């Protein structure tokens, strides 16, 4: 089955933050009111009640002048998600069309996923002692609707559809942007981490939007998940088995020698 995903074109985004509200409206999330700290972007990061935020980043260079970059930031729905890898409860799963979804009934709030995620996306929700994140509105999509953010986007900066077709459109669009004043325009999410199920059309390099240029799953995660978890654990049964063998052999040998009453070390 084809992957369905969101395409986000920063060159069309006016940062109205409708996506942020529509997300709360659909996912029934309360507000998380924080004081104003000098940037339009009130939340520095997503939180347990805010699955998506729009970043506001200012740049200035002597030639191009001031630019104000906006970036909608949320779960990237990685094809091989680290959150899914580390979750001890198997709360994460991939839908067959590419969304990474999280089952709150299984979640125990351990937050391993939060720190495993190269984008720091799953966030702890204190009032439930669980982690929460963007679902790509899987419930809506499975009923034939678009995700809430894509449906509400006034300018069409967010489009939802077939990943392959959206990538084709993104290529055209990036070529257009490169020829029209954005020489560094690029696609993000096509190749990153083996292809994200979230595609960005950027007017500049990813670092100008606060995106990791080459996102990687932190090295500790595969070491932990692929080596420690499956292999180290065998030491424990080994110890138990050794003890059992010893329990038997010592007694067998003791019966044999009899005189061994006094010996032994703990």
């Amino acid at each position: 089955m084809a992957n369905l995903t969101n395409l986000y074109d920063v060159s069309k985004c006016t940062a109205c933050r409708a996506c942020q509200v529509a997300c709360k409206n659909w996912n029934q999330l309360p507000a998380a009111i924080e004081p104003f700290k000098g940037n339009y972007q009130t939340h520095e990061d997503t939180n347990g009640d805010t699955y998506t935020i729009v970043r506001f980043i200012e740049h200035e260079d002597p030639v191009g002048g001031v630019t104000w970059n906006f970036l909608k930031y949320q779960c990237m729905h990685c094809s091989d998600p680290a959150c899914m890898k580390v979750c001890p409860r198997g709360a994460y799963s991939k839908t067959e069309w590419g969304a990474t979804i999280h089952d709150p009934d299984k979640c125990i709030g351990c937050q391993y996923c939060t720190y495993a995620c190269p984008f720091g996306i799953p966030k702890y929700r204190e009032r439930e002692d669980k982690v929460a994140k963007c679902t790509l509105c899987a419930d809506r999509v499975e009923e034939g609707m678009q995700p809430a953010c894509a449906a509400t986007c006034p300018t069409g900066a967010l489009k939802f559809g077939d990943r392959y077709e959206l990538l084709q459109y993104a290529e055209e669009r990036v070529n257009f942007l490169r020829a029209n004043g954005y020489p560094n325009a690029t696609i993000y999410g096509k190749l990153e981490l083996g292809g994200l199920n979230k595609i960005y059309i950027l007017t500049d390099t990813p670092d100008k939007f606060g995106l990791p240029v080459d996102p990687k799953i932190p090295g500790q995660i595969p070491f932990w998940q692929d080596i420690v978890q499956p292999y180290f654990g065998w030491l424990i049964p080994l110890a138990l088995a050794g003890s059992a063998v010893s329990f038997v052999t010592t007694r067998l040998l003791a019966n044999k020698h009899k005189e061994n009453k006094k010996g032994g070390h703990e």
Partner: protein
Amino acid sequence: MQLLTEYREDVERVERFNFVSRLTHWGHTVTFLLCLLTGLILFLDGVDWLAAIFGGYNSAGLIHRISAVFMTLFIIIFIIFDFKGIKAWIKDILSFGKNDIIFILKFPLEFLGFEVKMPPQTRFNGGEKGNSILTPTCVILLVLSGYIMWFPAAFPPGLVRVAYPVHDIAMILSTFMVCMHGYLGSFHPGSGESFWGMWKGTVRADWAKHHHPIWYEETYGEKKAE
């Protein structure tokens, strides 16, 4: 078949572990096992039955955290009330030498029940020293990494990410050690008196003289008397 050696009051006994040491030891035994079992729920897949014993995943998590706090408290108590003991213990561990290496090399045979001639040992033999180095180190790592994982927001993300494998590795190593130690300290026929040393605090003087001659000499022997 006899599981434990008999506790005998009719012979001379000498103190091997004071009350604080024993409290710490047994306190850790309980909290460690609780943490282990509740923690294994996450480490192993498909152990819902184990979670069910503790009343589900959430209460297992709660028990894990409470036990961990007590585990920490025992360490603190130990440090506060028996600092001298710790110093002596560490000193003894650090005196790891030739005799200890020979002990460890020969140990597997003894483990299986063969008669082996061991070199004289200090308060702790080579195996115990190994255990004394590894297990507390692992426990400290478990405690530290555990708190990092409990309060991830208070630590740098890199440290949090390291904490997970560290917690796991420390858990595996310490569990390995605990299994061995638990067996040797109780059901291994040779352990004999050492169990009572930790349970009641005293061991038979003759046993001490035989198994830990150097320590016995230093503590209860003539040298001490001087």
